[in-house]
């Protein structure tokens, strides 16, 4: 496990670059606001919409707030949204997929049909609906995103469960009178956790992009709080007079998504060499195009 992790994250120059960039961005999110001389909402009246300089490395925005510290705050929000939403998606997707795969038959059919129906609804619709219903509450946004992104995980975990459900240790547990819930929790889920974690990693970039998309539309995180989506939306407004306000948050967002995509692919190759290749995975906000693949794949 440690070796494989090392190989996936640090083995080649490219992997080291991605890991380094990600570590840097996480450090910026965690420590940037602590060490910055500026507060996220502090206004520097001497530097309204100022280009990058020694005192404001990323420049300032229209009202003179330091963009480095705001980008760091945005990173905190965007990364924690991604983390929480991914966790929520795993909490729903893993038990769902494991139960469907283990129970088989009618229950499996029904549960996967529900997944199919949900696949037919693009996530943006669901999230905007949630925004309409619950108002613009960032916490609900986390949960809403997680509740949309669990579908892929449920499919993958179901596939993995089909593989382990006739293993000797599962039969043994059943013979000893273990309950279905107990078998799922103690024997099935631990054995499908590896791939589930890897695919969980791969949902993070999708969530980051989704959050930025929603915040860009003004439906997500609200002022004075900020996220990369909000910063990019503001930057796009003023990009003619202050391109730096768009360039820095956009670059950090792109670098983060790119690095996680690269590392996620490597992780998947290490832990699940027979799994679908990166080409068979859904890209950012390209909901569910492997649905039909796995469907036809399993019926053959």
């Amino acid at each position: 496990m440690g070796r494989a992790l090392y190989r996936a994250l640090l083995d080649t120059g490219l992997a080291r670059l991605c890991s380094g960039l990600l570590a840097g961005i996480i450090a910026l999110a965690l420590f940037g606001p602590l060490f910055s001389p500026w507060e996220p909402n502090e206004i520097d009246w001497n530097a309204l919409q100022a280009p990058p300089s020694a005192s404001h490395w990323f420049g300032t925005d229209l009202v003179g707030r330091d963009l480095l510290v705001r980008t760091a705050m945005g990173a905190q929000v965007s990364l924690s949204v991604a983390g929480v939403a991914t966790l929520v998606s795993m909490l729903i997707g893993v038990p769902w997929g494991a139960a469907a795969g283990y129970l088989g038959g009618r229950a499996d059919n029904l549960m996967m049909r529900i997944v199919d129906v949900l696949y037919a609804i693009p996530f943006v619709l669901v999230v905007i609906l949630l925004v309409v219903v619950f108002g613009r509450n960032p916490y609900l946004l986390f949960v809403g995103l997680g509740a949309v992104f669990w579908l892929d995980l449920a499919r993958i975990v179901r596939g993995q469960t089909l593989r382990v459900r006739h293993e000797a240790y599962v039969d043994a547990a059943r013979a000893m009178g273990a309950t279905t819930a107990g078998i799922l929790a103690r024997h099935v889920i631990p054995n499908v956790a590896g791939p589930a974690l890897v695919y969980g990693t791969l949902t993070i970039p999708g969530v980051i992009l989704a959050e930025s998309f929603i915040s860009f539309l003004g439906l997500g995180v609200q002022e004075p709080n900020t996220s990369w989506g909000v910063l990019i939306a503001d930057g796009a407004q003023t990009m003619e007079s202050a391109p730096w306000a768009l360039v820095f948050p956009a670059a950090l967002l792109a670098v983060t998504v790119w690095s996680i995509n690269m590392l996620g692919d490597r992780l998947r190759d290490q832990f699940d060499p027979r799994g679908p290749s990166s080409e068979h995975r859904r890209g950012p906000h390209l909901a569910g195009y492997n649905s039909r693949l796995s469907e036809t794949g399993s019926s053959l």
Partner: protein
Amino acid sequence: MARYVLRRLVWSLVTFWIIVTAVFFLLRLAPGGPFDGERRLPAEVEANLLAAYHLDEPLPTQYARYLGMLFQGDLGPSFKQKDFSVNDLVASGAPVSLLVGGLALLLAAGIGIGIGAVAGLSPGSSWDRTLMGVTNLGLALPAIVVAPVALLVVSVWLGWLPTGGIGSPAHYILPALTLAAPFTAAIARLTRGSVAETMTEPHVRTARAKGLPRRRILRRHVLPLALLPVVSFLAPAAASLLTGSVVIEQVFDLPGIGRYFVQGALNRDYTLVMGVVIVYAALILVFNLLVDLAYARLDPRIRISL
């Protein structure tokens, strides 16, 4: 085949009904009504408004009424834009959204399959690595970044294309291109993997051993098989293109349905939001159905197994 079509059709209708029902009750359960403004309305006025929109009836009655209207193709009045019905708004926005989305889908499929085939025919070559590096970047750059930057560079600085709005065909070029970008990247990657895999199949080796020309092998033996995953990607891609155009419409100031959707969401204009969701869902289901049928035509195994 007929049974397969019928099954798919029934399944789509059931899905559609589930979506309509879920959205209807979700919106009715939402806290706060469409008429809660800054200023509290006098009780009588509010009661009159609710009665005018039948919002004072019990929920099941409202639901039955909505389904009945929907059956006749009526999406109801907009709660916020008093002089318009949701049908008017959707009808005025849909052509723009569909045109931009359709153009983007064509561009993404055409360019993506081209790039993917070139890369997949010689995996590991410098062409392959360059193209795949570019597509990786395409996947990491969302429309909210690409669209404003493209607008700034191409329209504002270079002045090659109009900056926004509609009017001439030139107005659609930049929106379609920026909307297509991430999908081009995804389709290119999908095609590459699939072509590279198909090239190692025994039937391709046989075709080579028979001495068939490269072009013919590609066209008759590789592409039909390699494009199967691409075809199945087109349905969800079309769905994402439709919703992705929400951002594009915002940036390029296009009067499409995506704009009404965001406006409706911000104003809690329930009927408008619901109407747009229903239109999107219907379009997506129809497209899914078409893709399923195309898939069944391309892959004989599906035709036989069902």
